[in-house]
């Protein structure tokens, strides 16, 4: 049974003379959690941003549930509703309270009534453990709390897939756990997720598949046990070793 949510064919992306993605292909099944690892500059974040076309790929095709979203006539706002994205820098709207941040998508994009949007948003904030912060502005929240609001904001659109772009990299170490816990919970509930991260423990425990990016291509991929313990490529092993050193 192949229930493919995202299919990517031969994706290329260059910034001026620098080719960042050199032909990446991937399929993501419904409910699958794909963790993408690789050194900085390997193209993993760019790959994620191409999936909802915040970056415009130069070549290749992307399908969301069998509908191509790389065509000229693609209604981008409509496509992006179905693809949640969480950023390294949270990017909450600072002029809005936590609940307004979560309501913004449903209200502005889906034209949901204020009452329904508010109820839904408060349920989502409850889910990420912030039911006591509904009316607090992002500036008054810790990084971990902000990132959880950002996750609730993305969930409010009821996306078919969620993209996590190094979402714990800007956090103080003691705040990383609370964000990863929410992400694990989403994974357990069957959310389809693509996660770019340096948190290898998260990869080991939550990922269905780990994909190693290197210089704009997929170097190797497989179940976490295989990648973390018996990686085929010397480069992958060296990359993982290096992380260990940094983590000590």
């Amino acid at each position, binding site marked *: 049974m192949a229930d493919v949510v995202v299919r990517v064919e031969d994706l290329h992306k260059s910034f001026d003379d620098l080719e960042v993605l050199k032909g990446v292909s991937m399929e993501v099944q419904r409910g699958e959690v794909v963790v993408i690892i690789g050194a900085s500059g390997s193209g993993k974040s760019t790959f994620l941003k191409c999936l909802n076309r*915040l970056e415009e790929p130069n070549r290749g095709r992307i399908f969301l549930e069998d509908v191509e979203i790389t065509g000229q006539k693609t209604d981008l706002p409509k496509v*992006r509703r179905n693809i*949640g994205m969480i950023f390294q820098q949270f*990017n909450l709207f600072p002029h809005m309270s936590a609940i307004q941040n979560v309501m*913004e*998508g449903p209200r502005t*994009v889906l034209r949901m009534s204020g009452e329904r949007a508010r109820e839904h948003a408060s349920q989502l904030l409850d889910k990420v453990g912030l039911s006591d912060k509904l009316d607090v502005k992002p500036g008054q929240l810790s990084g971990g709390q902000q990132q959880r609001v950002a996750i609730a904001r*993305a969930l409010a*659109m009821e996306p078919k897939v969620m993209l996590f772009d190094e979402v714990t990299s800007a956090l103080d170490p003691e705040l990383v756990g609370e964000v990863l816990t929410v992400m694990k919970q989403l994974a357990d509930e069957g959310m389809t997720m693509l996660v770019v991260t340096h948190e290898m423990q998260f990869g080991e425990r939550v990922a269905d598949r780990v994909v190693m990016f290197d210089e704009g291509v997929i170097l190797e991929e497989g179940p976490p046990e295989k990648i973390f313990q018996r990686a085929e490529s010397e480069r992958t092993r060296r990359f993982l070793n290096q992380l260990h050193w940094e983590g000590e």
Partner: protein
Amino acid sequence: MKYQWHFEVVWENFPIMLSGIGLTIALSILSMLAGAILGMVIALARLSPWTWLRGLAYCYTELFRTTPLLVQIVWVFYVLPLVTGIAFTPFYSGLVAFGLNIAAFMAEIYRAGITSVGQGQTQASLALGMTNAQVMRRILIPQAVTRMIPPIGTMWISLFKDTSLVSAIGVTELMYQARFLAVDTYRPVEIFTVCALIYFVITFPQSIGVNWLYHKYRTRE
């Protein structure tokens, strides 16, 4: 040098000077409104995805920022009617010149305010499925406005003083009346002194207000 000040002349003609203040204020407010609206159009053009439109808006702002205001005023008054066949009264010529000029500066203030909000906000909004117009209206402009208020205040004050330049084309505002009275009464020293004082009395509180705005919105960030 011992100069005999004769301020009676000023008091005798004070109603005439006051009548000029009304036009000064009217010209300032109307120019500001026109410039604020036209400036928004130009700012959006400068931020548009189309290169030709950005180029056009860039040329517009640079044209008005790199030529003297007095030249613009005189040009609109004397040359524009010849080119277009539309003749304005001096007041409307002044309004057109100031409106076009202020628009160029307002466009820069808007643009700087909007671009200062940061790429992350735009990306997060687009990722939610917003259209470009929604991103502008819901996310960028509300955040940009507080950053724009102080520079707009500064510009308003220079606009208010600069309206004195339209005396050159015969708009009967404060400066024009002062020049008229100076010639008429042979008392330029007293008249221009009081004229300067009137500008100061009106502008100084506004200047304090603008400083207050700077403080208020700086601590907010």
